[in-house]
């Protein structure tokens, strides 16, 4: 299996940005049902800035690419998702160090640390109806394959529908949060799907 180079990470982030841009209205719609109707525009603003930052300052390594993306999200998004996604990418990047290429297993380990940092920062656990419900299964499946990770994320995202939210804004709704997909889980799926697509494109 091929190693993942800096270009791969830049393409992944760019692909994520494109997906977020396409799906922003849907994310906002989801956030409108159980939140405050800004998740799509938050992430669009953030990932647009990420694309610009990557173009302006081409990163020297996979870790640097994720670090730059994470810092950009923190300084452009705000809200809950800015620090959380920012931390996810920064921490994952930090774990990758300055290696020029990394394996999928390296990435899986690093992302596990990244997701762990999100858990520590936000205090949420699996089943609380947050982005973690897509991210945790995804990083668990990542050692198997990119496709397995995407499938796990997709299942996790859909799996948030019947849950009662216990973290974030949706938790204020109590039982009324049941029956809606969590917007952060939906956007996490976009991130993991973009990873799969980037891999498949590289693999061709």
């Amino acid at each position, binding site marked *: 299996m091929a190693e993942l180079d800096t270009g791969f990470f830049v393409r992944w982030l760019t692909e994520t940005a494109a997906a977020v841009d396409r799906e922003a209205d849907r994310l*906002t*719609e989801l956030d*409108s*049902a*159980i*939140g*405050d*109707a*800004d998740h*799509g*525009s*938050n992430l669009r*603003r953030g990932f647009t800035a990420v694309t610009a930052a990557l173009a302006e300052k081409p990163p020297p390594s996979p870790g640097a690419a994720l670090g730059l993306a994470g810092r950009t999200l*923190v*300084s*452009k*998004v*705000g*809200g*809950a*998702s*800015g*620090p*959380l996604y920012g931390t996810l990418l920064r921490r994952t990047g930090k774990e990758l160090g300055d290696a020029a290429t990394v394996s999928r297993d390296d990435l899986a380990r690093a992302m596990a640390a990244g997701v762990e940092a999100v858990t520590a*920062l*936000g205090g949420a656990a699996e089943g609380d109806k947050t982005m973690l419900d897509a991210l945790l299964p995804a990083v668990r499946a990542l050692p198997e394959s990119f496709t397995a990770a995407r499938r796990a994320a997709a299942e996790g995202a859909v799996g948030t529908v019947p849950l*009662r*939210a*216990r*973290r*974030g*804004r949706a*938790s*204020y*709704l*109590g039982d*009324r949060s049941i029956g809606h997909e969590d917007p952060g889980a939906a956007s996490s799926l976009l991130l993991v799907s973009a990873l799969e697509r980037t891999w498949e494109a590289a693999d061709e």
Partner: protein
Amino acid sequence: MKMLINAPERVVADALRGMAAAHPELVVDVENRMVVRRDAPVSGKVALVSGGGSGHEPLHAGFVGHGMLDAACPGEVFTSPVPDQAFRAATATDSGAGVLFVVKNYTGDVLNFDMAMELAEDEGVRAARVLVEDDVAVTDSLFTAGRRGTGGTLFVEKLAGAAAEQGAPLETVEALARRVAEACRSYGVALGPCSTPAKGGPTFDLPTGELELGIGIHGEPGRERRAMMTAAEIAEVTVDALLEDLGGPPTGRPFLALVNGMGATPLLELYGFNAEVQRVLAERGAVVARTLVGNYVTSLDMAGCSVTLCEADEELLRLWDAPVSTAALRWGR
């Protein structure tokens, strides 16, 4: 939904430009998204910095000035500001006496302000934080992100701002702010949804003849939907929720009361609602020392209202009456 805007992504910057034009007594940094007292940093004075998502105006930028906030940093609509903003606001206002961040309890606000606090401390700024979590509609806080910060923010900013203006040191201002935050309870009711620029339409559907009880200030639906009620009935539900949370019948200490509009409810109706709130409070044996009626902690164009009670004492009354000079709250100067 029609809005008086240019484009959703320009709303906050445009508002700051407009605020700059209307308020030469403030320093408005459109680029870095902050509103600062013109005389900041005020020598020897603890600086109060607050902020949060936009869409709650006049909160917070409308409360920047003598006797209240030193700086406010507005995020995008309903989106907490990024750490850089709050960090810049802190360094722009710190006179060396330290900075108190007033933070409404939302995951995003807490995370971003905590990051700002770390940045500020790295720069040698003495920083403290008070969390406002006054919304009694959020009951089971173990299974939620905790109580939301809403109308109580105004009392924390006014009273701690007065203490800071009078020269109290950081620890005192922080302790006072915490005491005020603990003394505040709020409860909100929506008669209609609001429309955010990003969404371009209403954030929820509220059928004719129904209202939402226990709403927040971000267009999120409430805890419960009920058949429409009269102002008298809404006042009863609201006041009783507040008093119950305060632990039963009032203690005899006087209250500060805020009868707040969510944005689209006419002042005529708000005053009428205040009449009912005061009636219910009196019937329950509560004494109200000061009342503020108006649109202070809003949710864009939401129709509805909230009531905040702050249990006060002589000191807090004196701090309330102390001079304040901001865009939205001004007296004694």
